[in-house]
């Protein structure tokens, strides 16, 4: 009785069908590669960048850095751990966008690839130096908690695999933990995601 092993089977297959086997193998492998790459690239959601239009100068905010308030809705402010950055949702310029304001330099900070033309972001929360921004976004079929890294400019969906509704995310100042409300136990409860100790923590600069 012959020992059936993979090399034996392959040799036999090649012997019978010749070079066609290799051709199909190559095609099959490259298809697998394409599928694998496209699957993993879903972790890097890229959208069209929205050019930062001219900041409305008729700001009528009560306390005044120009550019923080506009004549449209500016809501849900969050201060960073350092106190330097303030993220908020603004309805100015005809688009509801998540914006980041630098209180020290008194200007808005660019957030490339975060805001999308076809989705809305709500309830932002930021880490110590606003490196990590979490928010709820509507770009898939249901509101998902997403994490934006200002250094890599990548968006990561955190709740893609979880059942139920989520809302009100909050990120810890170092960026490692994200707490949010979850309704999957039939009641709003607090859940927390641990991003692990291998991530780059957003540490407060002690010198400033």
């Amino acid at each position, binding site marked *: 009785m012959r020992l059936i092993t993979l090399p034996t089977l392959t040799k036999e297959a090649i012997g019978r069908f010749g070079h066609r086997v290799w051709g199909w193998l190559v095609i099959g492998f490259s298809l697998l590669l394409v599928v694998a790459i496209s699957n993993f690239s879903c972790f890097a959601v890229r959208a069209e960048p929205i050019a930062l239009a001219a900041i409305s100068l008729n700001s009528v905010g*009560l306390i005044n850095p120009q550019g923080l308030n506009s004549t449209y809705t500016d809501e849900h402010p969050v201060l960073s751990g350092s106190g330097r950055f303030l993220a908020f949702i603004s309805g100015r310029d005809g688009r509801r966008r998540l914006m980041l304001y630098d209180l020290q330099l008194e200007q808005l900070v660019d957030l490339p690839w975060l805001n999308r033309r076809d989705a809305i972001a709500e309830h932002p929360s930021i880490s*110590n130096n606003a490196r990590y921004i979490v928010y709820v976004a509507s770009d898939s079929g249901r509101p998902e908690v997403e994490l934006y890294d200002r250094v890599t400019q990548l968006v990561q969906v955190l709740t893609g695999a979880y059942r139920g509704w989520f809302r009100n995310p909050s990120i810890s100042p170092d960026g490692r933990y994200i707490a*949010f409300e979850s309704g999957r136990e039939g009641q709003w409860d607090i859940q927390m995601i641990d991003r692990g100790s291998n991530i780059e923590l957003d540490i407060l600069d002690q010198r400033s």
Partner: protein
Amino acid sequence: MKLVPVIVAIALVVFFLSSFSYPRLMTLPYDSAGRSLNSPYTEHEPQVAGDYLVFISDRNGSQDVYLYDLVSRKLLDLPGLNSVDSVASHPRVSVDGRYLVFAASHGGDVDIYRYDRQVRRLQNLTASLDAEVRNPTISGDGNKIAFESNANGQWDIVLYDRSDF
């Protein structure tokens, strides 16, 4: 023995796969009597800062602010902060756990309050502000507080620093 390389292979696979286990959902403590973080009642609006987690719960019959110490795993007392006839919402805490800000309604008026845990003092920051206020936030060191106000006919962001409170 052929068993050794198999065991080594399995160990390597397990080790390799475990590096994919983050981000992971943590198991948070639950107590049916309401003495811990999660309870049979609602928990809303959590915020995690440093070692502390602040949230809203109605487990004691009134919508109150709760502060949980994640290191010692217990709820901390907030004397003088909550009251039975007021509804609290949107709590935030500074990183050292000393200052809490939240919105609370007293007699139909919603104001932004700041609570100092060290001296147990509750301070109304918007008593003289003639507008609706909501959604307060505090910086990590407790020196800046921002919130929304509709004094100008739409929601705007107001920023207070130490000199304002």
